[in-house]
């Protein structure tokens, strides 16, 4: 009897903690979505339900253009960062005789722990002086933002890839080698399929990191390369904007759809 009460108490405490925790995480976002349907220019005064701000959002050239720029930079940056992250993951887990290994580990994980503002400042000053010395990059713009985003994303992708590589059985690769498979084939036929889920999640992480970045992009951007966070920040820095509410709701919808599809992909993967 006493045991049952104890267990009920524990269960109650667990549900209570999780409810409070998740409400804290979701309350602000859900409020924002609710108010995106508010037909009033003053964000917090409820007037009536409407899609007015969604219509205005889709007519706002500045936001649409920034959205397009952001998607372009994020997908390119994620692709390059994933390629290099896989290379790093390989060199750190598969080549045991790499000289000065701690140094390479240090090299590849440093960007993880550098505050954005220092990273942004140093890259900007670097681009300015390299422009001074060798004339490249000729001006600040999408290219410089892309380079910066690749630089800080590589480390994150490398973490994901190398943890996957070091946790799966190396013997499969060695067995293939013993059976006379050439190294390239081993990679494409064995290693790549095994680490594919990590490659996908690495790519997605790099994509979101780039899409989300405001500070580094603000430093390294130039004319014609305003990314979405830069435009949104300029809109909400001093006040509220109902269009941004609508934008949040759309982004939330995309993220939820992505999360659900990842969930189902993972589930079918596990079942197999």
């Amino acid at each position, binding site marked *: 009897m006493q045991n049952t009460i104890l267990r009920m108490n524990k269960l109650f405490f*667990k549900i209570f*903690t*999780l409810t409070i*925790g998740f409400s*804290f*995480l979701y309350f*602000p*976002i859900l*409020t*924002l979505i609710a*108010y995106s349907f508010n037909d009033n220019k003053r*964000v*917090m005064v409820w007037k009536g339900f409407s899609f007015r701000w969604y219509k205005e959002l889709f007519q706002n050239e500045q936001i649409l253009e920034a959205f397009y720029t952001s998607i372009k930079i994020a997908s390119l940056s994620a692709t390059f960062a994933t390629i*290099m992250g896989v*290379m*790093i993951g390989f*060199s750190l887990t598969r*080549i045991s*005789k*790499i*000289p000065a290994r*701690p140094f390479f*580990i*240090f*090299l*590849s*994980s*440093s*960007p*993880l*722990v550098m505050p*954005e503002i*220092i990273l942004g*400042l*140093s*890259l900007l*000053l*670097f681009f*300015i002086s390299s422009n001074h010395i060798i004339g490249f990059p000729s001006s600040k713009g999408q290219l410089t933002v892309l*380079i910066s985003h*690749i*630089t800080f994303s*590589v480390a994150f992708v490398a973490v994901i890839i190398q943890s996957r590589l*070091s946790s799966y059985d190396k013997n499969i690769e060695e067995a293939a080698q013993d059976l006379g498979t050439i190294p390239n084939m081993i990679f494409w036929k064995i290693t790549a399929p095994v680490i594919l889920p990590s490659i996908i999640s690495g790519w997605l992480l790099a994509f979101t990191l780039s899409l*989300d970045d*405001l*500070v580094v992009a603000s430093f390294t951007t130039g004319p014609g390369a305003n990314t979405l*966070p830069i435009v*949104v*920040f300029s809109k*909400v*820095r001093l006040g509220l904007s109902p269009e941004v*509410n609508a934008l*949040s709701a759309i*982004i939330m919808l995309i993220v939820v759809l*992505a*999360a*659900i599809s990842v*969930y189902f992909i*993972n589930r079918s993967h596990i079942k197999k």
Partner: protein
Amino acid sequence: MIKLNSNLMIHQYFCLMIRYLKKQNFWFVFTPYFWLVLFFFIPLALIFKISISVSEWGMPPYRDLFSLSEEGFKIDSTLSNYLFIFSDPFYIRSYLNSLSLAFTSTILCLVIGYPIAFYVAKSHANIRIILLVLLIIPFWTSFLLRVYAWKVLLQGSGIINSILIHLGFITEPISMLHNHYAVILGVVYTYLPFMILPLYGYLVKFDLNLIDAANDLGAKPVNTFLKVILPLSLPGIIAGSMLVFIPVVGEFVIPEMLGGSDKLYFGKIIWDEFFVNRDWPVASALAMSGIVILVFPIVIFQLMYAKYNFKNE
């Protein structure tokens, strides 16, 4: 003797390197490291160089560190930028504000995040996956928009004020925005997933039988927690804390959106020094001192990272 020794070591190192390069595909291995050296370490070296240069009017607004003129080779360096920063209480206070903000919010994230991570990790496998997805969704949602959400909530005419008025706790809206409590709230809210996810990663591997074993042996719940659960999740605690502490020290967006003029933070000072005052040497010196202050947590993170991610090899 020592010199000979070190020469020998360098020689050995190069032999190893050359033998190694012949065997492996050189570009496949080294391209990403070249990239990181070029776009991460050289820029850092560059801000160090600029931080010890003399300010000057013009473009770029500092004097070259090395100059070759008729009088010969000259090094024009100065520590005055650093002296300027550390003699002005304004800058020192902003460092301390940032450190205390990072410290407070790391503790709060840990206190709030630990029970959540613990219960999610202890849930039944089917529910756990759903809860994990629910944890990751805010992590994927734009950082800027999550900060903005609090700006909307905390407004004078915002929902929290309305609720408080309805409940009769207050009669007039109180201003909750533009102070450092709002900044702490925003930081805790946006960085909470960074704490929960590494904690979850360690707690999920944790064998629940250990708790039962401790209970059976007569340990009180408090002791079970302190002596069994806590030590085993320590790597997660340290990883999560570093992932919150380090970026928060340089945080710019949250103080800019939710904060007021009561406290100034390090990130904002660098931003203003660069974009408003256009004093590159002082901005660089501020960034360098920021790195120096963060060296200790960064080294802890690096050691942990190397230890726990590469222990199998």
